[in-house]
C-alpha cells in the first residue's frame, strides 16, 4: 500500500479533526479534571463518538461494525492526540475489540462486540503487573477448582479500569485444559464480579488507571476466550497493535504541541521583535519539524502493516513507538521551553500535551523499552 492516505482515510481524518476541535481540547480536559467527581473520561464526548460510529470502526459487519481499516482508525487516534480527547476509545474500541474479534465465537463475543460497536459498553484490558513495563511477567493465576476455575492476582496500570463494565484479563493458567492453548490465557469478565477489587488512580494527564485485584474470582467456561492462534501470538499482536495506535496518538500530540509553539513564535515579542525571528529557535523548530515528518511516515507504515497483517508488525511497532515517544518528549519539552513562563502555567495548554505525551509513552513500554526491542527484532 502506498504511503499516502486514500480519499476515504483523508476524509476520516478531517472529520475527526473537525469534530474533536469542537468537542474536545485542553480546555474541556481541564474542566473534566476539575469537576467535583472526576471520572477520567468525558461521557458526553464518548456518546457523540458512538453516534459517529467510531467504536464500531474495527468491528466486523456481522457484529454491527463498519469493518474499516486500521489506517482509518489510526487517523482518529492521531486526532485524539491532537485534541487530547479523553474517552475509552483506545481501551474499548481498539484493544478490547481486537482481542474479541480474534476470539472464537462464544456467548460473550456475540454479546459484547455489537455493544462495543454501539458504544454501550466499556472494556479495559488488564495486563501489566509491575511499574516497569514487562509484558512477559504475568503472575496472575488461573487455577482449576471443583466447579470451574479460580483467578488470583494483581494488575496495575489498567487504563480505564475504573470505568469499565468488563475486563479482559491476561493470566497464566496452572492446569492446561482443552480450552486454553499454551500457557497464557485471556479472560473476559464482568467488572462487578465477586472478588474483583478495583482501585482508581488519577494519572497526570487526568485519565484514570487502576490497580485491579483478583481474589478467588470464580471463572466460568464462557469467560475464557479461545483463539485460532496461540494466546502468545494474540498477546504479541495485541501489544503491537496497542503500540502502533499509541504512536499515532503520540504523533498527534507532537503535531499539536509543535503547532502551538510555532504560533507562539509568530506572536510573542521580546527585544522589539517576534521571537520566531531568532535563528537559534528557528533551527530547533525546523529540526523538530523534520523529526515529526519522520514520525508521520513510520506511523503510517506501521498502520498499513497492521492492515496487511505483514510479518514485521512487531518490529515496525517498536520502531514507531520508540521514535514517536522520543519526538513527543522533544516536542513537548521544546513547547514548554519556547513558551517560557506561560508554558509552565496550568492556564495554558502545553502542560496538558506534556502530560499526555508521557502517559501515552509509558503505556505498553517507553522509548527505552522499545529501543531495546527494536534492536532485538532487527537482529542486533
Amino acid at each position, binding site marked *: 500500500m502506498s504511503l499516502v492516505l486514500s480519499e476515504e482515510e483523508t476524509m476520516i481524518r478531517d472529520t475527526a479533526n473537525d469534530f474533536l476541535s469542537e468537542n474536545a481540547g485542553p480546555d474541556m480536559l481541564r474542566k473534566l479534571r476539575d469537576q467535583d467527581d472526576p471520572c477520567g473520561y468525558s461521557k458526553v464526548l464518548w456518546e457523540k463518538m458512538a453516534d459517529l460510529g467510531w467504536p464500531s470502526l474495527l468491528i466486523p459487519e456481522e457484529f454491527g461494525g463498519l469493518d474499516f481499516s486500521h489506517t482509518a482508525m489510526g487517523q482518529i487516534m492521531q486526532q485524539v492526540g491532537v485534541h487530547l480527547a479523553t474517552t475509552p476509545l483506545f481501551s474499548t474500541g481498539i484493544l478490547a475489540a481486537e482481542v474479541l474479534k480474534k476470539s472464537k465465537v462464544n456467548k460473550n463475543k456475540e454479546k459484547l462486540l455489537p455493544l462495543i460497536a454501539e458504544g454501550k459498553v466499556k472494556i479495559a484490558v488488564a495486563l501489566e503487573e509491575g511499574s516497569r513495563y514487562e509484558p512477559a511477567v504475568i503472575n496472575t493465576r488461573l487455577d482449576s477448582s471443583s466447579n470451574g476455575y479460580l483467578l488470583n492476582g494483581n494488575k496495575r496500570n489498567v487504563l480505564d479500569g475504573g470505568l469499565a463494565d468488563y475486563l479482559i484479563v491476561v493470566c497464566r493458567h496452572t492446569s492446561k485444559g482443552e480450552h486454553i492453548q499454551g500457557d497464557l490465557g485471556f479472560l473476559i469478565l464482568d467488572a462487578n464480579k465477586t472478588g474483583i477489587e478495583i482501585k482508581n488512580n*488519577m494519572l497526570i494527564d487526568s485519565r484514570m488507571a487502576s490497580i485491579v485485584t483478583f481474589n478467588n474470582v470464580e471463572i466460568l467456561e464462557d469467560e475464557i476466550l479461545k483463539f485460532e492462534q496461540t494466546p502468545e501470538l494474540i498477546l504479541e499482536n495485541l501489544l503491537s497493535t496497542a503500540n502502533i495506535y499509541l504512536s499515532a496518538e503520540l504523533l498527534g500530540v507532537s503535531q499539536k504541541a509543535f503547532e502551538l509553539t510555532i504560533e507562539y513564535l509568530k506572536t510573542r515579542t521580546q527585544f522589539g521583535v517576534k521571537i520566531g525571528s531568532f535563528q*537559534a529557535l528557528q533551527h530547533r523548530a525546523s529540526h523538530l519539524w523534520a523529526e515529526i515528518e519522520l514520525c508521520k511516515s513510520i506511523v503510517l507504515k506501521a498502520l498499513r502493516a497492521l492492515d496487511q497483517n505483514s510479518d514485521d508488525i512487531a518490529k515496525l511497532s517498536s520502531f514507531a513507538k520508540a521514535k514517536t515517544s522520543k519526538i513527543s518528549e522533544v516536542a513537548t*519539552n521544546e513547547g*514548554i521551553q519556547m513558551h517560557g*513562563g506561560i508554558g*509552565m*502555567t496550568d*492556564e495554558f495548554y502545553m502542560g496538558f500535551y506534556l502530560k499526555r505525551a508521557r502517559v501515552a509513552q509509558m503505556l505498553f513500554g517507553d522509548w*527505552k523499552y522499545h529501543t531495546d526491542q527494536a534492536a532485538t527484532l532487527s537482529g542486533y
Partner: protein
Amino acid sequence: MNNLNSFRKDIRSWLAENCPHAMRTPMLEKDICRGGRNPVFQSEEQQIWLKRMSEKGWTAPTWPVEYGGAGFSKDQAKILREELSLINARPPISGMGISMIGPAILEFGSEKLKQQHLPAMAKGEVRWCQGYSEPNSGSDLAGLQTKAENFGDHLIVNGQKVWTSYGDDADWMFCLVRTNSDVGKHSGISLVLFDMETPGVSTKPIKLISGTSVFCETYLDNVRVDIEQVVGDIDAGWTVAKYLLTHEREMLGKLGTAPTEKSVKEHALDCLGVCNDRLTDEVMRKELIDWEIDYLCHQLTMERVNAEIASNGVGNTSAMLKYYGTELNKRKHELLVSIHGSDSMHWENNPISRQWLRSKGNSIEGGTSEIQLNIISKRILGLG
C-alpha cells in the same frame, strides 16, 4: 592557619551543643524555614535553631556585626559552611532576603537602608519577594514597563509583575521599575523596596502545571514608595539588577546538585532489574551513565570555578553553570520519571512526577537557557 583550626574547633563544639538533632535530618520542600512577620514553624526545634543561629549572626556570617551578621572572613565563612554540612545541618532560614536582596543592599544601599533591613533579614523576621518579570518582559527583562513617577520624596508605582515567588506570603518586595522613559531601556530603571501591605499592592497566585502555586501575579496600583527605599541611585537600577541576576544564576546552577535523600542511582537500583551486578535495562543504563558523567563533570566545574574565583578573582561562568545545571536537572527528572515507570504517572501524592513537572521551569526562571547561551556568545566568546 592555627587560628583557623581553633576557630573550626569552636564552631564544631558550638554546633554540637546547639544544633537540635531534628535539624540534622534530610529536609523536604515543606521543611524549609522561610521566617517572616507571621512565621510558620514546622517544629519547635526549627524555631530554636533559627533563634540560636541568628543570635550568633551565623545566618549571614559574612555580614558586619552591626547589620546582624558575624563579620566573618571568607575563609571563616567557608569553615562554618563545612561544619554545618558535616552534621547535615539544615539552613536555619532560606529565602530571597539573605540570599538575594541582602547582599545587594550591602553593596549598593544607603546606610539607612542597611540598618532598616539587614538585621531583620538576618533574624528571619521579614520575608522578601522579587518583582522582576512582567507579562511582556520575560527574557527581555530590561523592556519592563512598570512605571514609577517621581514626586521628589516618594514615587508612585503602577504596573504588573509576574512570577513573584511566594508573592502572597511575602512581607516586602524588591522591585524593578521604570523611572525614566526618555533614555535607553537599560538607563531608566530603578530598584525599589516596599512593604507588600502598602495600599495598591495585590497578588494572585498562578497555578502551575505541577499543580502548585508558588508564583504570583502582583498588581501595583498607585503604590507609594518612599524615595529612601530606592537601592543605589535612581535610574541606575540595572546595575543592581545585573548583580542580582548573576547571583541568582549561580544559585540556580546548583539546582539538583545538592545531595538528596536518595540518589538517581539508588532509585535506579531499587526500581530496575539487576543481573550480575548490572542493570538489565541496557538502554536505561546508557542514559543513566551519560547523565552521571555530565553530572560529575558539572559538579567538578562548579568546584573548579569556585577555586579559580577564590584564587584569581576571575569568574565569568555563572551563565554557563546556570545553563548546564538546569538542563542537567531536567534530564535528571526525566530519568527519575522513566525509572519509576507507570508509578510516576500517578498524580496524587507523587513527588516524582510533581518535581519532574516543576523542573521544566528551571531553564526558564532566572533567565532562560537561550539567554544564558546569548550571554556566553557575547560576553565570553565575543560573537555577535
